[in-house]
């Protein structure tokens, strides 16, 4: 099958790649652009490990075709910290709260959590739990993840933890 040329913006940079029409956005990010921070846990949109932002909308990149990225804006875990490496409050709070064990689901959960706080800066614990219900974590039992998100949200609102 012949490949299709795709031009898109990833973490603020214009990038180009050749995609087989069968390849997912996740395949293209990982295998063509070398951005392996987004993970494939299921390939069926059930685990959330491949979560990215597509034109500001939270999506499972395993359910988006690579060719659909044409002309769009994509934000991945690799673009979450400041350009100088300063961590996003969510990233810092995940480390502080020991909210990761193996860390495999972490990029997807961070991307999803950031999307939540953009929409709802002051979520209840229940709202965080329901928002993250599409992100599977098998190690932590979610307890410390929820605490980290709540704490990061408080800090981002300017409340002293």
């Amino acid at each position, binding site marked *: 099958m012949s490949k299709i040329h795709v031009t898109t913006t990833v973490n603020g940079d214009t990038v180009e790649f050749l995609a087989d029409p069968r390849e997912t956005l996740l395949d293209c990010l990982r295998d063509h652009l070398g951005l392996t*921070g987004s993970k*494939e846990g299921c390939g*069926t949109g059930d685990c959330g490990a491949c979560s990215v932002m597509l034109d500001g909308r939270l999506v499972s990149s395993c359910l988006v075709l690579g060719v659909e990225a044409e002309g769009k804006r994509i934000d991945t875990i690799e673009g979450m*910290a400041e350009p100088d490496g300063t961590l996003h409050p969510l990233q810092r709070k*995940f480390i502080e709260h020991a909210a990761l*064990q193996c860390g*495999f*689901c972490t990029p997807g959960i961070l991307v999803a959590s950031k999307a939540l706080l953009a929409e709802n800066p002051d979520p209840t614990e229940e709202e965080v739990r329901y928002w993250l219900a599409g992100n599977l974590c*098998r190690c932590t039992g979610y*307890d410390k993840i929820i605490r980290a998100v709540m704490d990061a949200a408080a800090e981002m609102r300017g409340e002293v933890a």
Partner: protein
Amino acid sequence: MAKDEMNSFRLVGTRPDRPDGLDKVTGRARYGADFSLPGMLWAAVVRSPHAHARIVKIDTSKAEALAGVKAVITRADFPTGLTGENWNLQENTMAGDVALYDGHAVAAVAATSALIAREAADLVEVEYEVLPHVIDVDDAIKPDAVAIRPGAADASVPEGMPPNVVRYMEMGRGDVEEGFAEADLVMEKTYRTEATHQGYIEPHACVGQMGTDGKGEMWVCTQGHWYIRSMSAAVLGVEASQLRVTASEIGGGFGGKTTIFMEPLSLALSKKAGGVPVKLVMNRAEVLRATGPTASASMDVKVGMKKDGTLTAAEVEFRMQGGAFPGSPVDMALMCCLAPYNLPAAKLVGYDVLANRPKAAAYRAPGAPMGAFAVESLMDEMCRELQLDPIEMRLKNAVREGDRSSFGPKFGSIGLVEVLEAAKAHPNYAEPLGENQGRGVASGYWFNHNGETSVSMAISEDGTAQVSVGTPDIGGGRASIGMMVAERLGVAYEDVRVNVVETGALGINEPTHGSRATFASGKAAVLATEQAIGEMCRRAAKEWDIDEDAVEWVDGAAQPAGPNAGKFDPMSIVEIAAKMGSTGGPISGHYEGLPSGVGASFGHHVVDVEVDPETGHVKILRYLVVQDAGRAIHPAYVEGQFQGGAVQGIGWALNEEYVYGPDGRLQNTVFLDYRIPVASDLPPIDTVIVEVPNPGHPYGVRGVGETGITPPLPAIANAISDAIGVRMTHLPMNPQKVLAALKAQKG
């Protein structure tokens, strides 16, 4: 427990950031599928769609003819003549004459892209003769069941047993009949659990390369790369020494990544393709169909109890299938199920049974959750009958140091009584309950394994230390090992860097399994550190021209031991390191061996549930884990183990199961259908870390990783019974089953 009163350590017991945290929150950490090599090929595996079928013919010609395909392999490409577990591993890696379960590998291809490999796999034509199959353990153990592998039984199986029984075991002591005669209440019941999967989010992945010189290399996500090395070598008929294996970061394992499934295929394909590296990544359906699951179980339990709660005897018979190969964890289920109780008489009988399912792998405290479900459910029912507080009953019968365990050896220092007292005193145990709400408790036990361990550490020129370990960091191991080394060395936590190194860099290491990494690699790292400290003291003694015994190590520096040793200013690790090149060369320490002094861990869980009588849905309202950690090096990661184990247990109790169709095919091969707990299913998981230090470890560590999955199955069943008066004896306790039980109760 106020742990600050219990220790005076500088770092042990604190909560520093884990050293690999930055890589893991930025997407930089490299997991199995994140590794690539220039010119690498991609592999795909052809799998049996049948539960049991003779492989009549495999035609690979069309696949080989596809442009971009570089190698196709079948079992014919593997050496013959393997025996025992090596044969089992080879047979499971790729079927020989017979496909033994749905998903069993029958061929594999390597091509220039993942898409071409997948296409080629579809072009491999396999002719099957479908055979009768058996899935359920109670069916598989019948005398007239289809014999899956005649001759697979080992010497433990007496003559005349049903054909699929491959191991038989008996243990225990005392006269159980006498014990039952002394009891005021004797109850017996049968319980069943279904197979579940470890459910790690990272699918298995590796890149293998094997040259024409017979030397190979592999990058793989695994809990133990030395195991990958020896098992892959055995399957391929080469010496383990010819393979070099590097462990990637690991995206969860829970026991399921302590063995091989498809890793040797990448090496065999690479060899056939002339030594080009081959990447092999499973998809989720392959993970569920062909890796990991734990056994399903059918269990009879009989217990005798006096009116005051004193236990007089217990007898259990467990039947477990571990797939089409020997190795269900029935032995460990037997050993753990009665461990919390000081019993005058116990009889334990176990059957390991074959069925047409994937080869079972270890899953967190293998076997113990099933056994606990049976025993702890019955204990609860008897307490209810005799109107006894279930924690009081457990305290009355609790094993203490020096007591003989139900499975034989005497217990050393253990903390069960302290755990039970802490659970009883916790506010959760006194929270008022509403309508359709109930509370359940259960105890659990798991061992602490030592295992072959090699660790080395070296002092760098700047006075910091690097530690090389061979146990992959699955949940904070680098942090806890680094803390212990820094504590002993007297340096800052940040001045110790712990690296997980490849098989060429250390002696043999068993995997991160058996709750052993912080215990075994941790103890080995401390012993290695002491060796380096000894050398640093020698360097100082030489410079001061005093006896080396007159030098001691205090707060990161050598100093004269007492006034008679001489008057010298302390010589810091930074000073010693800076000039080590001229005082005798590099300074390092190492440990190779089997670290002694393991410390087992008891836990007790308290759970409150609410059952919806309309739908049968069970909601977890509150959940408390109390467990003895010996001493928590990094309490946050100890809590994490408790919480993660509890939630895996909640999934197993309420929802997870392998569902097979009448054709013997697995029906739930995606996470949508094999549903593991999500954040909105759960409340916060409360934890209490009990610390009864293990005298066998320099900092008192016990293994904590596995015990936590053991109590949830019965604790939740007991809570459901308390809520609605229905006793659930068959997992999972999903809405359909709970509703059916409610209906049956109403008549």
